[in-house]
């Protein structure tokens, strides 16, 4: 079966199946991949004839004992699957219904609305730790309810299915995106429980023809809750899973990435963790291998380049070409040393997966060519030069802590204003008009690393991590290094272009470390028409 054919089949399945009809609805999450097993790509649901209709149910398992699982269940090929990858092309429409059936807090302990009127998720209202929503992270879609809005939208576990419906903009960059809960007060727990999935906008081969036809491997890192997590939250160390397989060096548990010897693969990697900073290396016999980077944060890089380390902050995505190991070569995917700052969580180097070259390896399906309906795939954007810059804004990330383990408060503050934790009821901190081009300088006033993120808008990275990129690249998340206690605070500089039509709306910018954003390190800007 060719890739295109299999997509059509899956698309039909996706359109046809809802829990309430074709597939029995489970009470719990589905079983996840067992440790030390071969890594498989997530199941897929693919748009057909310009649309993709998906029904997801968010469930939880093991109320009182950890690890808590929080899962997004959908249906594919008549089976219940977890966190399916959603594939759409530019101009396709996504119609996703989300039913919240989280049960990890007893109903008697829930904060409930006193009104007898039906709950409208778009208005927020009384919330509980089981409240949820979905953010389609990085997608440049309108930030209205039922689309990209994710700070007010509140879906309760007694609400009927909530519908997200939007069209991927026709000129949207092709690349890797992800969806996940973003409800303040519950997002981190749900993320760490596993509630996230991948969304791919097709057309990468238009920007980088060298990926066409390569086996496409989708790897999703998530943080995971451990049995002792209730005693050690926030965790003293990052603990990850890869495509839901536990990574545990202490127990010698590593996912197995099986490749044919010497094969070239197209890897699409998402850091779907709430807090973890990844610095990935492909290591053969102790030597870091170069990989060919083709896209970051869902946007093709203008010129692909060779790298040995791929740094991914929480929420970051990278797409690159990997040359597989030779038969018998000792190969690993590792976390290289990465400094999270003097007060950051330890982030020791470690092995994340085994890479095994085997002639019998079952390669993932090849990346299919997309389009064919006369669409124009926009693969690059030109950064407006300095003449167009209408304003420079300075802001900073800061922490205030009462102890070595908190309680701590986290702020994202415009210079000159008093730091205050984000309050969704307050008006946006910044007002901008369509047509503006702004440079933002974001400083880190803490000994802890942070990841600055703009929701639903990409920005050009002008200066980051102490280095100026060879050419400005579009990102939606950038690491802001920790202050080392001496000298000026570290800064990153970005450029936001609001000249494009459709820029109007209310957008959030935040630390992409989920629990810190929930603790207040977040703000909003309004773009006026």
């Amino acid at each position, binding site marked *: 079966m060719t890739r295109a054919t299999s997509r059509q089949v899956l698309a039909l399945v996706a359109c046809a199946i809802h829990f309430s009809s074709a597939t029995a609805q489970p009470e719990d999450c589905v079983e996840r991949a067992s440790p030390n097993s071969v890594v498989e790509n997530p199941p897929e649901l693919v748009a057909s004839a310009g649309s993709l209709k998906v029904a997801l149910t968010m469930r939880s398992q093991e109320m009182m004992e950890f690890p808590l699982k929080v899962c997004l269940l959908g249906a594919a090929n008549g089976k219940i699957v977890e966190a399916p990858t959603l594939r759409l092309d530019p101009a396709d429409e996504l119609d996703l219904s989300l039913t919240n059936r989280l049960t990890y807090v007893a109903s008697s302990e829930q904060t409930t609305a006193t009104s007898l009127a039906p709950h409208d998720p778009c208005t927020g209202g009384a919330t509980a730790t089981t409240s949820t929503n979905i953010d389609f992270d990085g997608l440049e879609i309108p930030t209205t309810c039922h689309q990209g809005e994710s700070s007010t939208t509140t879906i309760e576990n007694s609400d009927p299915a909530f519908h997200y419906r939007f069209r991927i903009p026709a000129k949207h960059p092709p690349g890797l995106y992800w969806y996940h809960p973003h409800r303040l007060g519950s997002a981190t727990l749900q993320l760490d429980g596993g509630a996230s999935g991948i969304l791919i906008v097709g057309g990468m081969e238009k920007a980088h023809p060298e990926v066409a036809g390569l086996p496409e491997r989708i790897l999703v890192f998530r943080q995971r809750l451990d049995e002792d997590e209730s005693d050690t939250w926030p965790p003293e160390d990052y603990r990850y899973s890869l495509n839901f397989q536990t990574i545990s060096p202490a127990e010698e548990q590593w996912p197995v990435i099986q490749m044919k010897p010497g094969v070239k693969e197209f890897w699409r990697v998402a850091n779907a963790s709430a807090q973890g900073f990844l610095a990935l290396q492909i290591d053969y016999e102790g030597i870091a291998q170069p990989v060919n980077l083709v896209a970051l944060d869902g946007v093709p890089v203008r010129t692909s380049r060779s790298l040995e380390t791929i740094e991914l902050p929480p929420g970051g995505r990278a797409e690159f070409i990997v040359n597989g190991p030779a038969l018998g070569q000792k190969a690993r995917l590792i976390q290289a040393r990465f400094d999270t700052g003097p007060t950051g969580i330890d982030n020791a180097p470690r092995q994340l997966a085994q890479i095994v070259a085997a002639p019998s390896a079952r390669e993932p399906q090849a990346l299919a060519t997309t389009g064919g309906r006369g669409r124009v795939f926009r693969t690059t954007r030109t950064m407006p030069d300095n003449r167009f810059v209408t304003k420079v804004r300075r802001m900073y990330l800061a922490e205030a802590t009462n102890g070595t383990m908190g309680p701590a408060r986290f*702020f994202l503050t415009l210079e000159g204003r008093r730091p205050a934790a984000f309050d969704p009821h307050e008006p946006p901190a910044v007002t901008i008009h369509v047509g503006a081009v702004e440079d933002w300088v974001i400083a880190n006033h803490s000994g802890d690393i942070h990841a600055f993120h703009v929701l639903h808008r990409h920005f050009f990275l002008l200066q980051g991590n102490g280095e100026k990129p060879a050419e400005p690249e579009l990102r939606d998340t950038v690491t802001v290094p920790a202050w080392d206690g001496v000298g000026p605070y570290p800064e990153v500089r970005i450029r936001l272009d609001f000249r494009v039509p459709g820029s109007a709306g209310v957008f959030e910018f935040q630390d992409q470390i989920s629990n810190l954003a929930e603790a207040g390190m977040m703000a909003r800007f309004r773009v006026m028409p």
Partner: protein
Amino acid sequence: MKKSLIALLLPACCAGQVAASGVPAATHFLVTNDDVQRQDPPSTVSFFAIGQDGALAGPDPVSTGGNGMAGGFFGIDRLVIVVNRDEACVFASNAQSENIAGFDVRERKLTGLFKGTVDDIKLARAGVGLARGGDYLYATFSGSGNIAAFRMRPGCKLDFSGEVHAGGLSGGIAEGLAIRGKLMVVTYGDGSLGSFDVSNGLPVAHDDMRYAPGVREDFNPGAVDITRDGHYAIFGGGATQTEVQVADISSGRLATPTVYKLGPAWGAGSVRLSPDERLLYVSNSAGGRVTAAFFDKSTGKLKKGCTSAPLKGFYKSFTYIGAVATELPSGSGGLLYVPEFDSHGGSRIGILRLGWSNGGCSLSETMDSPARGSSGAALLSIGVYPPRPF
């Protein structure tokens, strides 16, 4: 050998006062709660002799018979020195063991381990805070959220008297604790403040609980000190600057605090009045600095003073600093000692000198700062004997 050395090092200024307490005069020392987390061997308190020039010699560690948490709230005292008529005691909390270790200063031996109720056997992750009030020692157990009262007995022993559960307006646990006369002032982790009547030993809550100004922004109160006459309570806390608040408590209730912004250094994790109450020493716990502000004890007003540079090794050898202790129990207190917290057990003690110029002040580290702490120490709380007289 170390104890003989200590005998030679007592400053003349302190001898009379110490002798009056009935404790042998051969003592001028600094003591640390090492707060060691690992189970074996148990945690320690460490004694350092204070030389005539303020230099520290030691350490001389003594087992606490329990374990600490290697961290927690900045604003709590994990160690208090109590001077009674004929004895002096050190009480140090073991947060992981949820108990209090007593030591006789003369013998430097453990006199016992003292516990609250079974309710308090909940991991006190943020520490167990201690404060003396009259004949009682009070302890805030951050695991249970209780404030326990222990009656002090001869021989540096404690009798558990009872406890109350203390929660802030949003359920925060008790954090900072200070007592003067019959009034106990408490800060809570949720940003609220409140007071208790301790005239009968067991704390009885007043109806004056309130949020500190600025809690909706970046101030979260943690530490508290009270003037000698009990007129003012002074609060420090976590913030992105040096913010201190002063509340009038002369009515026996907590009035709305006045806010003072004393500089850009991060946080005021601990506040400590100088023995003469003309200065307030502030630990900029998250910023690795120390600030001194001018305090008017008759009006309760604060004026900006001076702030040190980040202490040597900030973010290299240590990440936070704990509560200041003064070398001397009179005047401005002489040198300042500051615990430099390293969660990996490499804590040290910074030593700072206060200077005066043009009506202002300066704070700088001495040449021999910092002094090395005991092996494994994760220091946030220290004390000096003889202690400040209030």
